[in-house]
């Protein structure tokens, strides 16, 4: 207790120096917290792009289809018994499902053509589980039973299509022949997911099945929505078990969105690596700053230290005392940094930041190049606070020991 008191008094003796060293730590922490929130926010919005517009949380499909899902084959489609589907949809974490039929197509207006993906959707289910209908900026959603389609804004601009215009999709059918689907643009959507805006044409699933010669209850996959995206990994394992336990001989499986979004997970890991690097730089700077301060104060106080030792304090105790001072600076810097960081993250989550300002074109990833908002993660704050305190304490110990082991007689002699 006494030691803590002495440490506190020593810190307040040199307020400016203490505060300056604390500021070094605080700014570094603030920077880390901010970077973490920014990356988290970026990942969050990307994950949302995937789960709300594209993949859903879980997709049910056959194992063979999963293997070459990039080729959008019309083989190995999924068709579930009413009963199985009801059992899956009845699970507590599942909020809805939507079957889809994806196919490779060539969009043409007779003059220009663009290769893209046709997506046959169940109009009701898709609208209630995904944000396609809510993203319509012009025109309306597809009418039941009409040969209509919804397309992205950038696609519409490239093909110079407007609501009410006709276009064709050239497709390869299951019968290994070409077919043409005539469609009218019912609505134009603008989603934060650039992939959907550029590459996907939504049309009624029945129409797609007829044109592709696919049977009535078949789909490429059935997309499930859950109450929370964090549940997807566990839930997909359980649903997979449920699917393989059934009498069906098909090799059906449930895949979570994490499995579908490999590229993004890679990016996440890369970002984590960058954060570790930042953490390393903080560590080095804080260590240099603390060591500097501690040595300065030890040099200043050789006499005092000698006195304390002469009065019976052990080397261990003196070292600990000076280490505590360093930890005190760490606590101060940590508190200041966390407070500043919280302010910065608050601003980031309220106003957002447009880091892509002035840039044209898009990257080949499902990241929207819009404003990014920060995300809160309390764990980061707690972690970085203790990190700074511990680092400060440890980097104070070495110079403290160096000062503490000096012979009191020599020092007092000077």
């Amino acid at each position, binding site marked *: 207790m006494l030691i803590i008191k002495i440490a506190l008094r020593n810190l307040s003796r040199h307020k400016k120096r203490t505060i300056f060293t604390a500021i070094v730590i605080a700014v570094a922490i603030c920077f880390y917290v901010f970077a973490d929130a920014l990356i988290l926010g970026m990942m969050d919005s990307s994950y949302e792009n995937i789960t709300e517009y594209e993949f859903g949380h879980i997709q049910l499909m056959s194992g063979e289809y999963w293997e070459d899902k990039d080729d959008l084959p019309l083989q190995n489609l999924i068709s579930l018994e009413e009963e199985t589907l009801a059992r899956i949809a009845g699970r507590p974490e599942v909020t809805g499902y939507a079957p889809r039929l994806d196919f490779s*197509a*060539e969009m043409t207006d007779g003059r220009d053509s663009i290769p893209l993906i046709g997506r046959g959707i169940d109009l009701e289910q898709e609208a209630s589980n995904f944000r396609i209908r809510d993203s319509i900026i012009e025109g309306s959603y597809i009418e039941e039973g009409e040969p209509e389609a919804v397309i992205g804004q950038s696609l519409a601009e490239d093909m110079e299509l407007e609501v009410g215009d006709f276009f064709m999709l050239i497709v390869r059918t299951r019968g*290994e022949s070409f077919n043409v689907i005539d469609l009218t643009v019912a609505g134009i959507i603008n989603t934060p997911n650039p992939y959907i805006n550029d590459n996907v044409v939504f049309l009624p699933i029945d129409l797609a099945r007829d044109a592709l010669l696919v049977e009535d209850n078949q789909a490429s996959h059935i997309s499930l929505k859950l109450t929370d995206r964090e549940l997807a990994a566990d839930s997909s394992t359980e649903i997979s078990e449920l699917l393989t336990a059934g009498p069906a001989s098909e090799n059906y499986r449930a895949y979570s969105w994490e499995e579908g979004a490999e*590229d993004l997970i890679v990016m996440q890991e890369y970002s984590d690596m960058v954060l570790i690097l930042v953490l390393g730089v903080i560590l080095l700077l804080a260590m*240099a700053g603390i060591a500097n301060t501690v040595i*300065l104060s030890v040099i200043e106080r050789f006499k005092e230290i000698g006195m304390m030792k002469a009065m019976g304090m052990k080397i261990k105790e003196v070292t600990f005392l000076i280490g505590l001072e360093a930890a005190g600076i760490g606590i101060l810097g940590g508190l200041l940094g966390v407070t500043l960081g919280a302010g910065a993250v608050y601003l980031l989550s309220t106003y957002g930041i447009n880091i892509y300002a002035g*840039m*044209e074109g898009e990257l080949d990833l499902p990241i929207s190049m819009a404003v990014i908002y920060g995300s809160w993660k309390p764990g980061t704050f707690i972690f970085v606070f203790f990190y700074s305190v511990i680092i400060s304490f440890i980097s104070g110990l070495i110079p403290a020991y160096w000062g503490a082991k000096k012979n009191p007689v020599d020092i007092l002699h000077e």
Partner: protein
Amino acid sequence: MRYILSIALRNLRRHKLRTLLSISAIIIAVIVGIFYRSILIAYSESTFENFIQLESGHVRLVDEEYARRERVLSLQYTVDGFAGEGLEAMMAALKEEEALSGILPRLRFPAFYAEGDEMEHMLGWGVDIEGEVEEIDFDRHLAEGRLPDPGSREIAVGYSLLDKLNRQVGDRITLLYNTSYNSLQGSTFTITGKIDTGLPYFDANIFVTPLDQSQDFLDMSDRATELLLFGSNRDQDSSIVSAVSSRLETDGGSDRYQLTSWRDSGGIVQWLMAYQRIIFVVMAGIVFLASLIIINTLMMVIKERRKEIGTMSSLGLKDKEIVMIFTCEGALMGTLGSVIGAIIGGGLTAYFSVVGLDFTEVMGSMGDSTLIDSVVFPTFSLENLLVAMVLGIIVSTMACIIPARQAAKVEPSEAMRDLK
């Protein structure tokens, strides 16, 4: 001035350990800055080079209408001469321009392949094979076989596209495409080579075929969709633009062709340039943080030497000179730290630019889809060292002005006061 410097130097030597400690943070900051930037430069340089060679040239000439809806890859808006006299004549005229060292015509067209119930879309590039080899060493991307010969129906295919098509070098394949008259036609090609550029987009989508062949089967004789213009190096872009655009003014075509420098081509190039600016700001921030430690030391030094400062000012030194002495002291520390940092950082990058930094273990779980090579060879450049060093010196010197001004506030009477 001289004596100010020598006072500052002497003061630094008085407490060698303290000086060394105070500059350690600057050293670290400069090393981190140099090292990180060298990795970034290495990555962006190779990206810029690939982008320039495969996508943009130093300057790209296309029809305005073609560029407006580039994704459609329309065959209606082509490069067919200044006033429709044909591609060959236009290229011959452009070759006389001194700013240009090479011109690569390209004819890009969508094509697809259908087998069973699947349809595979791809992108064909009709290119001047000899020109590509000569100007951008296109043959270095060849992983297997050879490039197609002009005059024969041959193609070289990106390796992952080849995988998707289930074909091998030597096989034949029938591809479908729309001609410029918008009729769907097909041709059978012999696959002569496999291409591996390392760029996923290229390798998964593109095949190249001789320009004369593509002009023939697309009914586009003496036309191309774009011209890539090259100068002696990539900084020649603006002189190419001005030379070619004045040519377009006199010979015609200025109202339909547009010239775009690689810098303005968007996408990854601008992203990387913005990223480089961000890194520069972050570096300055780290150096500033490190400077706080020098400020800390300076404040302490000033407090220690109040008596000395008082004496100096009573001997007639002006406030400005006292500020100079302490700023000098700080600046010297910053300079020393920056120089040491630059030397160590330079040594490290020089070492790793040869050995390479292997991130394979860290990125082990990331698989092949990674955008970034797992082994990085940082670029060693004097420019990089200089930038970091100068940044370190400037930021730390500016930071030291703040505490140095306090020194000037010391009254001459302090010299007489007993501080103890």
